[in-house]
C-alpha cells in the first residue's frame, strides 16, 4: 500500500507524490478520461492505425510463394513421411490382434507390474469388441511416427538449450507459441505445402506435442547436480564424455517424463488430425459427430483414452524404474 500513500512533504507540510505515484496518477486520470469520453459520446474509439489487412495479405502472398517455390522440398518430405507411415501402419494392421494384445500385455507386466498387464489386455479386448481395432492401429501408427520424429527433434534441441542460455531464451516463447497457437492457423499452410492426409496431420501433431519433450530434456540436463559435474570434470572428462556419460544418463528419468507428456499430447491431437484427412480413431469421432451420433463418438473417444492410459502407465513405470536404478537400492 506504500505506493498509494502520498508522502508528507517535510518542508511545507503538504503532500507530495513520488515518481511512481505520479505515473500512476497520470495513467489513472487518462484511463478515466477516455472511459468517460466513450461513456458520454457512445462510440467505441478506433485505434488510429490498422495495418492488419495489409500485413495479413503480405503473409498470404508469402505462403503462396513458399508453396510454389518449395514444392520440390515439400514433395520430398511428404513422400518420405508417407512411406514411413505406410510401412508402420501396414505392420500394425498386418499384426494379428492376439499377438498385439499378448505383446502389449507382457510388456506392461514386465515394466509396470501384473495389474497394469491385466488392465492392458482387458482394455484392448474392449477396444476390439467395439469394432475399433483397425482404427486404433491406424492411430497407433500415426502416434508412433509423430512421437519418433518428435523425440529425434526434441532431445538434441533440448540439450542445445540446456548448454546455451541464449538459445533457451529464444526457444521459450517459440515453445509457448507451439502449444497455444490454434492448430488450424498452421494446418492450412501445412496442407498447401504437403497436401491433404496424414503428413500435415503428423506435422501438426509434432508442433503440438514436441514442446514438453524439449522443455524436460532441457530441465533434466540442467538439473544434474553441479557436484556430480564437478566431480566428473575433476577426473578429466572431456565435455563430450560429460554430456554422454554423465549428464544424459542422469537426465533420462526427466527426459522420459517429457516423452510421456509428448505421447499424451500426440494422442490428444488425433481428433484435430482427422480434420485434415488423417484416418484412425479421430476420424471415427469426427464422422460420428457430424452425423449427430454422440454414442459412437463417445466409444471412439474412449478408444483414444484407453490407448493413452496404457501407453502412459507403461512409459511412467519405465521412467520410474530408471529413476530407482539411478538412485540405487535403499534410497
Amino acid at each position: 500500500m506504500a505506493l498509494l500513500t502520498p508522502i508528507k512533504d517535510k518542508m511545507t507540510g503538504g503532500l507530495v507524490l513520488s515518481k511512481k505515484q505520479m505515473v500512476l496518477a497520470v495513467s489513472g486520470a487518462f484511463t478515466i478520461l477516455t472511459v468517460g469520453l466513450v461513456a458520454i459520446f457512445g462510440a467505441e474509439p478506433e485505434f488510429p492505425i490498422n495495418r492488419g489487412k495489409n500485413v495479413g495479405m503480405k503473409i498470404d502472398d508469402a505462403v503462396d510463394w513458399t508453396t510454389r517455390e518449395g514444392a520440390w522440398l515439400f514433395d520430398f518430405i511428404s513422400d518420405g513421411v508417407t512411406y514411413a507411415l505406410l510401412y508402420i501402419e501396414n505392420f500394425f494392421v498386418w499384426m494379428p490382434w492376439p499377438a498385439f494384445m499378448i505383446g502389449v500385455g507382457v510388456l506392461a507386466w514386465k515394466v509396470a507390474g501384473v495389474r497394469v498387464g491385466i488392465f492392458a489386455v482387458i482394455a484392448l479386448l474392449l477396444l476390439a469388441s467395439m469394432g475399433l481395432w483397425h482404427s486404433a492401429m491406424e492411430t497407433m501408427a500415426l502416434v508412433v511416427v509423430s512421437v519418433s520424429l518428435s523425440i529425434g527433434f526434441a532431445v538434441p534441441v533440448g540439450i542445445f538449450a540446456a548448454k546455451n542460455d541464449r538459445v533457451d531464451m529464444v526457444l521459450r516463447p517459440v515453445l509457448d507459441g507451439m502449444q497455444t497457437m490454434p492448430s488450424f492457423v498452421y494446418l492450412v499452410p501445412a496442407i498447401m505445402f504437403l497436401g491433404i492426409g496424414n503428413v500435415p496431420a503428423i506435422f501438426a501433431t509434432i508442433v503440438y506435442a514436441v514442446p514438453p519433450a524439449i522443455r524436460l530434456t532441457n530441465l533434466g540436463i540442467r538439473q544434474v547436480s553441479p557436484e556430480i559435474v564437478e566431480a566428473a570434470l575433476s577426473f578429466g572428462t572431456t565435455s563430450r564424455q560429460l554430456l554422454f556419460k554423465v549428464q544424459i544418463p542422469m537426465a533420462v528419468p526427466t527426459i522420459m517424463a517429457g516423452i510421456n507428456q509428448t505421447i499424451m499430447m500426440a494422442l490428444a491431437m488425433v481428433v484435430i488430425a482427422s480434420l485434415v484427412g488423417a484416418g484412425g480413431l479421430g476420424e471415427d469421432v469426427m464422422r460420428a459427430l457430424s452425423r449427430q451420433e454422440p454414442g459412437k463418438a463417445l466409444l471412439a473417444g474412449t478408444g483414444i483414452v484407453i490407448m493413452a492410459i496404457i501407453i502412459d502407465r507403461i512409459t511412467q513405470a519405465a521412467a520410474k524404474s530408471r529413476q530407482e536404478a539411478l538412485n540405487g537400492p535403499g534410497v
Partner: protein
Amino acid sequence: MKKASWKGLLALASLSVVLLLVLAACGGDDEKEVIVFTDLDWTSGHIQTAIAAYIVENGYGYPTDRVTLATIPGFAALETGDTQVSMEIWLPNQQAAWDKAIAEGTVRSVGSSLDDNWQSSFVIPGYTQDANPGLVSVEDLKKPEYQALFTTIETGDLASAIGCIPGWACEMVNEEKLVGYGLDSYVEITNPGSGTALDAAINGAFEKQEDLLFYYWGPTQISAEKDLRILEEPPYSDACFDADKACAYPVAQVLIAINSKLEDRAPDVVAFLEKYDFTAAAQVAAESYMGETGAEFDEVAEWFLSNNEAFWVPFVTTEAAKKVREALAG
C-alpha cells in the same frame, strides 16, 4: 501536487463510474427484439448473412446479431431458437436434420436462393485439362495415362479423388457413383477431413500447378477465383439417382430458413426473406470484389447494396428501401 488534486482524481473517478452506470441503464430502450442470424462459416454464407442483416437492421429497425457457426451446430441453434434466421440450408446434404426439424415444426423454409448452384464429384484444374485435352469425361479416368495423373503414394496405382466433407450426404453418393461408373477399380476416394482442409488442398495444388481430382461445388470463393473444369457425366435423372447414381448431381436446393417463432415476432422481416433471392452470379461479383480489395464481409455487403439497387429494392417495402438508402449514404 497537493492533497486537493489527489482528492480531485478520486472525485472524477467516482463521477465517471456513476456516468457509466447511468448510460448502461439507458441502453435497453429499443422496443424491437434482436434478430440473431446463423452466420454460416463459408464465404457465400457470410456475405448473404451480412447483406440480409444490413437490410433487417437498417431497413426494418431490428437490432441484429450474427453467430458464426458450422453447418450442424448452426442448424441446431436455429431449431432451439438461439438463432432465428439461416440464409443457407443445403439440401440434400442436410436432408436428415431438415426433415426432422420440419416434422417437429421448429423451423420453416421461407424460400430458396442460389438456384444456379452446382456440385460435382469430378472436378479438375483448368491447367490439367489444358495439358491433357483428352481428359473430358468421367469415363476417361479409366485410361491409364489419365488415371496416372492423380495417383498418390497412399492410393498406389489408383487415382486419388478427394471426396466430400465427412458426414455430408455427398460422401455416400460419391462412393455409389464410383461403383455405378465401374470406376472403383481405377479411383479411390481420399477423405479431406473438413471443408477448410479441402480448400487448402485445392489452393496448394493450384499454386504448385499439380494435378488434382476432387469433389467441389459452387458458388464458392474457389469456384469464383479459379479455373475449375468439371468432367462430363450423363445428365441427372431421378431414375438414375434411384438406381446406381451413374449421372451428374442434381442442382441442390439452398433454402432460407427461419425459426418458426420469428413469424409472430417480426412478420415484416419474414415477408422480406420470402422475397429475398441471391444468385451465383451475384455471389461471384461479391467474391471478386472481396478478392481484389481484401474487404471484410460487412464492407462487401455495403458495397454490394450500394451498387446493385435493382437486386434488393424489389425485396423490401418502399419505406425500408428508403431507410437502407439513407444508411448506405450516411
